């Protein structure tokens, strides 16, 4: 072939392409320049990573224990109680008997908060819900423990930092776990709706014509469905759970991205470089993936933080109504409804309110910063 003959000209060593293209570098710089969004991002990331490690922060079992010269990891492994001389299938490390048994034959390290989201505090000073410990008299805090103030379990980790709810469960622990499940649910729903929405929008925008027309009409009908009633009906048939809820909400949430992506594809499919690719004989799907999708990604990425906060709010409102996660799950919506039912215990409502508002505000700030960073006309001083 002629090419190989000519190509003997020395070819410069391939310069490694930079990790970020110049456009993305400018976007990153813009994002950083938005102080509020940048700090919101880091605060949110720290909170999120901490909540992912919730089992090490708030748990009703020790992180590590040493019992009769054997190192145990109760966080990871369910040890039957007979190992410590009891009879239950899983060990209740909070019980006095087990604690004394382990302390006598070794040691154990507790997480900072000694409650999990389902743990019932059996030593509350008065009937649930109880106040945060710092609102109580010093003497009252541990009065339900056998030895009162002097009890070895009257430690900071055993006191309820934000009080307990009406079933004597620790609010702090429920808040941490509730934050985690909210964010995880929001992320899962956002990613799934983004995938479905982008695919649907891409197909519509790229092929246009009848495909577009039929799908647009379908989406109009679909999005006119009364989502809440359908949810109520499905929730009464199927057992509520994380994934069933995710599936039901996904049925309706993918629609939100279609419009943007479709518009972007409609606009970009007539770009000259797309026509050039077609003239080269590149296939439809390759063109969509390689040339058009990157264009649509900007619009999509801009929307994602807002969809994420929307998803979280949806989950919370369903939980509030009682159609959300199964009973006992740590959910912020359930905490709000408890706060509504127990107006004499404002710490419930306040905790839920501040968690929700801080989480959503952080997400909105991040979303704004992302949106502005992708805006080519916006420059920061």
């Amino acid at each position, binding site marked *: 072939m002629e090419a190989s003959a000519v190509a003997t000209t020395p070819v410069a060593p391939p310069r490694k392409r930079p990790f970020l293209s110049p456009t993305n570098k400018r976007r990153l710089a813009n994002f950083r320049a938005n102080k509020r969004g940048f700090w919101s991002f880091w605060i949110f990331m720290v909170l999120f990573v901490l909540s992912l490690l919730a089992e090490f922060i708030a748990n009703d079992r020790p992180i590590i224990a040493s019992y009769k010269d054997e190192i145990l990891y109760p966080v990871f492994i369910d040890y039957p109680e007979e190992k410590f001389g009891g009879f239950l299938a899983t060990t209740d490390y909070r019980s006095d008997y087990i604690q004394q048994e382990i302390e006598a034959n070794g040691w154990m390290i507790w997480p900072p908060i000694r409650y999990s989201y389902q743990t019932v505090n059996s030593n509350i000073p008065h009937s649930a819900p109880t106040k945060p410990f710092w609102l109580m008299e010093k003497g009252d805090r541990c009065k339900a423990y056998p030895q009162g103030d002097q009890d070895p379990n009257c430690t900071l980790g055993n006191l309820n930092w934000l009080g307990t709810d009406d079933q004597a469960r620790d609010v702090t622990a429920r808040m941490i776990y509730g934050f985690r499940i909210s964010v995880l649910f929001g992320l899962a729903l956002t990613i799934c709706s983004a995938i479905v929405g982008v695919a649907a929008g891409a197909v519509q925008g790229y092929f246009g014509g009848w495909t577009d027309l039929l799908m647009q009409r379908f989406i109009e009908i679909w999005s006119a469905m009364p989502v809440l009633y359908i949810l109520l009906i499905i929730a009464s048939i199927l057992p509520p759970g994380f994934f069933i809820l995710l599936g039901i909400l996904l049925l309706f949430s993918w629609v939100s991205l279609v419009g943007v992506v479709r518009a972007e594809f409609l606009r970009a499919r007539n770009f000259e470089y797309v026509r050039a690719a077609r003239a080269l*004989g590149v296939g439809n799907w390759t063109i969509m993936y390689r040339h058009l999708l990157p264009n649509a990604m900007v619009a999509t990425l801009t929307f994602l933080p807002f969809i994420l906060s929307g998803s979280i709010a949806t989950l919370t409102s369903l939980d509030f109504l009682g159609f959300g996660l199964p009973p006992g799950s740590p959910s912020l919506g359930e905490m709000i409804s408890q706060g509504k039912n127990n107006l004499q215990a404002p710490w419930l409502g306040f905790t839920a309110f501040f968690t929700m508002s801080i989480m959503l505000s952080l997400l909105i700030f991040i979303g704004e910063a992302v949106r502005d960073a992708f805006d080519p006309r916006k420059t920061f001083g």
Partner: protein
Amino acid sequence: MPSIPERRSGEPMTDPLLSVRNLSVAFHQGADTTLAVDGVSFDIRPGEVLALVGESGSGKSVTANSILKLLPYPSASHPSGEILFEGRDLLKASEPELRRVRGNDVTMIFQEPMTSLNPLHAIEKQIGEILQLHQGITGQAARIRILELLNQVGIREPEKRLKAYPHELSGGQRQRMMIAMALANRPKLLIADEPTTALDVTVQAQILDLLRGLKGEHGMSMLFITHDLGIVRKFADRVCVMTKGKIVETGAVEDVFANPQHTYTRHLLASEPRGEPPQTDPSKPVVMEGKDIRVWFPIKAGLLRKVVDHVKAVDGVDLTLRAGETLGVVGESGSGKTTLGLALARLISSQGRIVFIGNQIDQFSFKEMRPFRDRLQVVFQDPYGSLSPRMSVGDIIAEGLKVHERALSADERDERVAWALTEVGLDPATRWRYPHEFSGGQRQRIAIARAMVLKPRFVMLDEPTSALDMTVQAQVVDLLRDLQKKHDLAYLFISHDLKVVKALANHVIVMRLGKVVEAGPSERIFRAPKEDYTRALMAAAFNLEAVETGAVSQ
């Protein structure tokens, strides 16, 4: 015009109307500051036409925009300079003072007539607004004045046009509207920023004619910004040559053209496309043949979307193209030249026989066409739009190889990319960079490399030079000719620029409204055009003269 008072009769001719002294313009982006205009000085005397010539990026438009302070402040600033208009410094003028000057004493017309008119307002309202703002004329008086202006700029039947919206007008008519708006308040200075660049050659000639007439009638001064030296020679009294933000040469037009002092001016003057197409050789194999090619777009109407008529974009075109030859397709915008090219490249559906290297391809589906796509390539007009901004140059060029020569390993592909880049005169090491790092001419070379890497037989070139500067145009024309000679390529060269076509084409088709007006060897057509329309095109392109003939639309 009887209504025009002799406002400027008392002024001595020596006093400049506008005097720009040591003007600089800086743009700030983040921490970066770029100096777009660097210490520019010039004068415009009453009744004089001063041309500002330079290539894109030379700072000529920025200079013009700073006269009326139309730049995006505060990201733009003036580190130095003053702009004296009738003795007043416009740079120091307050915003209300400037508003009195804008649209009244000094007016501007812009390059793109479509985007400079508000699409939501009828013509009457747009012109009336200016009259009302600066002169307080409304109602019947305004209407009379508007009709007067429309007559003046040569709009036929202006009464019928009063209620028209910009999209109902042709490009030339829109530019006439812009000029009418600019003249509404009898300005002393008209700044024309490439007013004819977006227009067809025939319309360009008409607009230049109009401006020349108006200047004579009103004695108004003009600052004419252009990259086209032909226009300068025909039209201006004095010329300033700008490059890289500096004026390198100023003088009377005849002096500068006859005796250019600065090397850049000489370079600019020498950069018209030259050369002759290669010899026509009838023994070469036919690469592309079209018989009675038609592209009709249906017009649907009514509830059932019945086809009531067709837009005949291409209507029965025959052509034959041999290896090593170029077929030039010329015509005004809307004549169907690009549609014809797209039909031959099978990028839009058409009727009529298309035979490509012995295969009848007109009925092939997109999939069936794919094996032929490597030998049938397209280079588009806009080198900024035709390269994906998110892919490196190497990836862009290699894309076709990934489809057509799947057997190549990554290293072999890389070699081919490097070969194609050398072929178009670019350094192969640049293949790791992104398109935005290249100039317009370099980008067009990349687009050509993308076509060349597949070793095509036939290349459709859709106005490949019209988005480029004059000096770059000549280089691209030379490159195309070299590549043709080396690889025995057949070109379908679509252009409205007759100078470029003359330098490249063996045969020419002149198209108008989808039909072939005249076809033949280019030498014969350029020497002795038979049809009126062809003659009008030639006069407009080579002499910038508007020919009064029914063959040319307004």
